[in-house]
């Protein structure tokens, strides 16, 4: 049994302790918004927040994050930064196939929560671990800048 705090709720899940957090989210808790891409922390599709910081859930055993605050794409819109990011994504029509976008949004939200006015270099550093095969990088960059501007206006 592993006890996890996911999106504000506590779940006791019966999984082998080495099960990566990703598969607990997807297969046990049915939170399928977080995606599997590589299994090796190479692509960022599985990005979630652990106490607010982005992690690759495919490569973190569930047992290692017991008791910590896990946030997924399903509720990220409840935070100011998450909502701003989603609205910017919508306004700029960022997604194409959309598969990587949960991870992109989680990385972008974590960046803005930490650094409300990121430079291009900050964006590169924060987003370089998130692959998009549709090639939406320029739109992602523009949407992050737009979300940052909206957050600054609202502040």
């Amino acid at each position: 049994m592993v006890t996890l705090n996911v999106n504000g709720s506590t779940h006791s899940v019966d999984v082998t302790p080495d099960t990566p957090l990703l598969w607990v989210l997807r297969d046990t808790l049915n939170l399928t918004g977080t995606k599997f891409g590589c299994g090796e922390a190479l692509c960022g599709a599985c990005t979630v927040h652990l106490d607010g910081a982005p992690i690759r859930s495919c490569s973190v055993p569930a047992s290692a994050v017991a008791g910590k605050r896990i946030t997924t794409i399903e509720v990220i819109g409840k935070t100011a930064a998450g909502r701003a990011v989603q609205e910017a994504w919508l306004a700029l029509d960022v997604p194409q196939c959309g598969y990587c976008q949960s991870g992109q949004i989680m990385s972008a939200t974590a960046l803005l929560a930490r650094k409300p006015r990121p430079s291009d270099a900050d964006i590169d550093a924060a987003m370089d671990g998130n692959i998009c095969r549709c090639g939406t990088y320029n739109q992602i960059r523009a949407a992050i800048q737009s979300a940052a501007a909206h957050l600054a206006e609202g502040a």
Partner: protein
Amino acid sequence: MNGTAAQSRREFLRVTALAGGGLLIAVAVPGVGRLAEAAPVDATFAPNAFIRITPDGEVTVVVGYSEMGQGVLTAVPMLVAEELDADWSRVHYEQAPADPVYKNPIFGMQGTGGSTTVRASWQPMREAGATARAMLIGAAAKRWGVSPADCRGEAGHVVHAGGKSLPYGALASEAARQPVPAQVKLKDPRDFRIIGKSLHRLDTPLKINGSGRFGIDVRVPGGYTAVLARPPVPGAKALHWNAERAKSMAGVRAVVEVPGGIAAVADGYWNAKKARDALDVQWDLGANTAYSSEDIRRSFAARAQHPGLVARHDGDVAAAMHGPHAAKRLEAVYEVPYLAHACMEPMNATASVTADGITIWGGVQAPGAIQQALAAAFHLQPGQIRVTTTLLGGGFGRRFGLDFVFDAAFVSKAIGAPVHVMYPREDDMRAQFYRPAALLRFEGALDAQGAPLALRMNTVCASIAKAAHMPLPDGIDSAAVEGLTAFPYRAPNVQVEWSESEPPYTVWFWRSVGHSQNIFFVEGLVDEMAIAAGKDPYEYRRELLGGAPRYRAVLELAARKAGWSSPPPAGRYRGIAVAESFGSYVAEVAEVSVGDDGTVKVHRVVCAVDCGRVVNPRIVERQMESAIVYGLSAALYGRITIEHGRVRQGNFNDYPVLRMREMPRVEVYILPSTENPGGVGEPGLPPLAPAVVNAIHAATGKRLRALPIDTNALKRT
């Protein structure tokens, strides 16, 4: 398309009243007489319809094409909504099930690929919308006792010249009883209100909050997950494996042998993958362990010394090559490796095989092919194969493959329960569905003015058409020579030949297919000719494209927007390339710098496209940019290598793709056109690699004739 237009209206459109009083319009595709003339009311929710209008005025467009990022769930509804005069804010999409009524008229079966969706839908979907509008107008005119000619559609209402107005929803059930018009008049494009606008994509909202359902997200009650141990070498046979150890592991339900390999079936992916890894399969590797990429390359090069099947033959190449007007001779060998698609969502599918049929859920490009192939393999009728197409986490041609669908069906049948077959990333990368490796041997002669006099292009690659069970007219795979046979530059003597290669790796459709290698070859060669002629590569092309105005127009636009006539920023160099593919014309200028260590940085790509009439300009721009990124990943890094019959690469560490910090600025310019639509998903790709390689030549004087780009060769020593 002409056949479609020629169909009689009555054969073409079927209309049914919806239970609850809606209107449903179905467009029958030629050769498919499947819809009942008067479907019973309780059958109106059967999935052979394209438009649904409910009494509350919501319009649903049922889309038979697969959404893999290219925007079909928006573009197809736009076509319908335009002629329907719908209120766009009340237009929704629904993904169609597999049914012959959703046949892609270009393919003759339900499938999405070849940049065909808008081309295939342009006429029939607008006619479907216009038919619905005519019937709504007929219903309103009848109710008002006025002439239909005095009524028009406007933003979801029928409006009478006298000022009366009724919303479509209020007319839906009466409209369903109107006769189907024998003919409908489509709008003059000048009156388009929806087509041509950068409307927001309809599928974005569910792609920003995790709610979009991809194949990997399908959950069927009572279902399991399976991961397979697959042959590491094509043709390898499993001799024995440790099923007992796997079955003793947590959550494991079964270990079964299926044609695709040995499947570990368990509760959830992690248990299934661990059990798969514990199977410890011993393989008889068979006859294919001798293959290596280097051997394959050598065999291709040897093969290219011999004549191939002639796919284009203009003039007399041999005579001209050695004749009195040949002022300069050129020879070159170009080559490209196998490429994986590396979709973000690894291959996967869910199947439930029961006594009365098979249900498949997944991100698939060819529901029609799935019906046919599974029916044949499982001795069922195609109608017994139900396919629910989800969103696709990337397609690029890969999801036209049926391997993962068959795996799911065989495993489900073996265990008697629904099953989701998942490919770990390494299985996806090594599944041996690759863009063909290819090698082209070129011989050419220029005349005294430097213009092409004689060109012989002899390419060697495996046949995608054979892999996909498609015809080879005159024995030639058009996918192997497309882009070569279309050589558009003025040249009196041109010969294109193809030799088929045999290595056992399955070659497959990969974004832009044969153009992905052949335009790299041709546009590199044209650059070489320009330089041999002492001419500017842009001017040289422009002059030789005098008889190809659509090529020339995009070439000029790209050059102008890129500032070709003025010097690039210090340290940067430009290359240009142009191509037609899938009915669209694209020119690209790449602005590149090369570091002392050979590192190539692409700073900017300027793209000009003529894709005929544009349905949604933003989607066109994004598809061009998407193909540029996909092409740049391949040009910089893409390579599948074979060692002792095994695929070396497995994940994004050894099959790198472009990331955020490497992303160039991309500018896309759309050339206004009144031609019918061309494709947009793929045509942005072919010119990218040659534009970059031509820019590298401008920067370094080094001509790269192989992909991916060899940075070692570019080091300044």
